[in-house]
């Protein structure tokens, strides 16, 4: 057992939900990684696209073609963001299913920030539409127009920190006891470098998307731009990709170095190194594309860059999953054993329950009224006292009304109506058996 002695007393081992996974774990993991990668690519296009839109629109203040370019990218952001959201549901469901205890616990501990994702992203989405649809109408209020997208970018830059904090926090149950809100979880090791690597990745993916988008035959560049050529736009794309890859390499290294030892093993390191090599390969091709002296040579690099990036994303996703499994393995085993033991304990308690008869407070001194009195105490005494009004009227009043009408009292208890204006209506007690009702009425009517 590799357990840090200092932490064992503050590390919770909760019970898991005692229900089987809906499908084999490997299949769930595959679905999780697959759907997550699809989701994250669109997220990167959304975040990266809005950053590029902001940057290009600012440059567009001096060069009109940049403004046109910004507008073209803005139009893709609103579509990509819709895809990002819907594609996010499947990985969310899958991680909820696979890592129920871990993910939900992290969510609860960072609750307010976690919930804020919803209104924040909604506002950012509305801003991207506002920005896109007012491009012409606000042409003479350019700074105001730019600040709309700047606000959206700001939100898009905040939201990933909340996600990353959560997927990081879920891996470290030994830290849960020390977390007080989102900010304290944000400062756990590894969150910040991963975030910066992610921002680099947003630029990488958006850059290569721009190359593809402007390379489509049906896309009429010459009708859209004054001076920008198709090749000029592709070069811009490669430029963005190269910058993004550079950031990824730098921060990727820091991610690797600052990775908490808990989940590391040789396989994780191997995969991460392979990923790192893929990044360098992608960067090399991207640089070659950027420095090529004609469009034809540049185009030859496209597939090489794209494939090495996609390969990196896959390897990186795989290494994260491996790390996650490694980090939580021991804890999950203990949790499973504990869950099983609890189920048995619960079953045993169910088989020999604390009986209801014991719950009845039988007072032998009361003779044949004892059971009625006990039942009254259990069912009625929270609202009715002997001589004073509590929630309902006192017993004395009942006795006056029902003295010779035992059946009337029973009927009332089963299905009461509303008699008194200044009292709340009584709920019915149809669950009481005829014998119980007889005992209760006997007791009630015995009160003088």
């Amino acid at each position, binding site marked *: *057992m590799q357990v840090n002695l200092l932490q*064992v*007393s503050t*590390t*919770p*081992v*909760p*019970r898991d*939900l005692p*229900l089987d996974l*809906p499908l084999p774990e490997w299949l769930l993991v595959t679905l999780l990684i697959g759907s997550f990668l699809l989701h994250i690519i669109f997220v990167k296009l959304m975040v990266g696209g809005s950053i590029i839109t902001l940057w290009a629109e600012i440059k567009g203040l001096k060069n009109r073609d940049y403004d046109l370019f910004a507008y073209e990218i803005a139009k893709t952001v609103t*579509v990509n963001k819709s*895809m990002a959201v*819907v594609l*996010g*549901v*499947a990985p*969310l*469901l899958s991680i*909820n*299913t696979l890592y*129920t*205890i871990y993910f*939900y616990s992290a*969510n*609860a*501990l960072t*609750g*307010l920030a*976690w919930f804020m*994702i*919803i209104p924040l992203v*909604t506002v950012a989405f*509305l801003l991207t*539409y506002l920005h896109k649809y007012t491009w012409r109408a606000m042409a003479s209020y350019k700074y105001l127009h730019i600040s709309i997208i700047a606000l959206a970018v700001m939100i898009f830059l905040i939201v990933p920190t909340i996600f990353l904090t959560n997927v990081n926090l879920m891996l470290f149950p030994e830290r*849960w*006891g020390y*977390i*007080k*809100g989102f900010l304290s979880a944000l400062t756990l090791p590894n969150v910040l470098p991963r975030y910066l690597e992610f921002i680099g990745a947003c630029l990488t993916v958006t850059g290569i998307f721009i190359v593809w988008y402007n390379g489509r035959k049906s896309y009429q560049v010459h009708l859209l731009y004054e001076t920008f050529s198709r090749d000029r736009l592709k070069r811009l794309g490669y430029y963005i990709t190269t910058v993004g890859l550079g950031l990824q390499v730098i921060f990727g290294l820091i991610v690797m170095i600052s990775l908490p030892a808990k989940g590391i093993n040789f396989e994780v390191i191997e995969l991460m190194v392979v990923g790192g090599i893929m990044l360098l390969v992608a960067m090399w091709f991207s640089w070659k594309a950027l420095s090529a002296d004609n469009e034809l040579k540049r185009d030859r690099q496209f597939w090489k860059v794209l494939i090495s990036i996609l390969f990196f994303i896959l390897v990186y996703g795989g290494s994260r999953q491996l790390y996650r499994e490694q980090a939580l393995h021991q804890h999950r*085993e*203990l*949790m499973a*054993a*504990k869950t099983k033991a609890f189920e048995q*304990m*619960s079953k045993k*308690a169910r088989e020999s329950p*604390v009986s209801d008869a014991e719950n009845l407070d039988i007072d032998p001194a009361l003779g044949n009224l004892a059971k009625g009195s006990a039942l009254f105490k259990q*069912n009625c*005494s*929270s*609202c009715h006292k002997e001589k004073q009004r*509590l*929630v309902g009227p006192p017993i004395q009043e009942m006795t006056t009304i029902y003295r010779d009408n035992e059946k009337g009292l029973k009927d009332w208890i089963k299905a009461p109506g509303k008699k008194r204006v200044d009292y*709340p*209506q009584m*709920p019915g007690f*149809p*669950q009481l058996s005829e014998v119980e009702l007889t005992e209760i009425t006997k007791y009630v009517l015995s009160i003088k």
Partner: protein
Amino acid sequence: MDFPMFHLDWLNDRFLIAAVAIIHVMINHGLAVGFIPYITWLEFKGVQRAGREQIADWEWDRLIHNKMKVGFIITTTIGAMTGVGIWFTVALVSPSSIGSLIRVFYWAWFTEWIVFVTEVVLISIYYLSWESANKSLRSKLKHIRFGAFLSIASWITMVIIVSILSFMMDPGNWNTHKSLFNGFTNPIYIPQLFFRTPVAMLMGGVFGMLLTTLFTKKRSTLRIQVVRLGGKWILSWTPIALAGALYYWNAMPEAMKANMSTAVGSMDFAEYYDILKYFIVGATILSVLLAIWAIWKPQKVNVTLVIVPCLLIFGFLGIFERVREFVRKPYVIGGYMYSNLLREEDYALYKKDGILKHATYTSVQEITPENKIEAGKNVFMLTCSRCHTSNGINSIVDVFEKMYGRGKPLDEESMSAYIPNMHQGRTFMPPFPGNKKELEAIVAYIKQLQGTRESLQGAQVEGIKVNPLQNMEQAVKAYGDSVLVSKK
């Protein structure tokens, strides 16, 4: 018990879910399921109205396109995000129940997700290709056919999700079948679908009319004609919506009866149920009046005239959702898990040992006279806080003062007598799960709360205290060896 307790002490946790879910349902019904067929129909009318030499009446077409733009923007922003928001909020407030449901309904939601992705792709294509489809009559008609196709896709999402909703209300099925098929066959499924479909159409039509009055000039022929058509749409769906509402209204008590452990409707339910009757009548009369007015005097229809019925009909759906939620009580998963997130079958164990001993997060395990109040606070958090707050909406002090008199000091003895039996008289309440000492502790805590009015912070602010009985040290001691052995 096994999750840190997120808690909003003023707003009430369930209110958070309700707010997000109701906005989502309203947008889904009014701006997707009901709105898209309405828009497609009007787009088609635009083609019909054009002369032989024209593809469509362009002024008309532009108006319909603009209306679709509003629908598109709202559904892909607030609509989509509140959809995800339901997952987020439920995960925060009710992790055990949603976690259990996902484990059983994974495929149902996966299917729902695929239909949902398709819907978003289709809605984007439909809206974004509108202008380019206007080039020829052929492409315009193709676009309209596409709209019809999209209408069916959005309706299918409703068919699936209603099944999930119905399952959750269905008594006892969880323990026997645990399959989605039950959602489709349970007694409330068809009534719900039959109710939701025309109500969505109605909402789509009323919201559409509101947009017409916003986007057209007063007394313009365009406005008069579109308003009149919209009136016909509303008028033709209203009787079906009324029939659906009555069908659902009549089917609901059955589900209610079967669900409640004690087979009665509570007063609170009866109250809601009564209000619902007035809402059904009110919403129907209002829709008919609006429709007739729109057909008869379209030139007199304006924003202010439409906004009131629009809000009311959206509110009409809201109250139905509230009642539907209530039907579930005292369970969150019928017959399996109570709304306090504790499983019914574990009650015997909790009664025997008390709940604090088994709670993963609590600052008290063994109750002593010194820590009684603190213990009560933990018991409150673990067993009451999903529905009650200390001082906010549905506060625990408030519900007791309502019973025993406002401003009067709460009587510990009465409360101690009441709590273990409350589920008998108030059948929407789950039974109190704790033991006698825990009962005394929670009563002392509530009593003190009445005096101090201190607030109770959730795990998102206060963090958590790990129960020493439930920590890693204990787990390794108890199961460490067996885990090692099983690995070999």
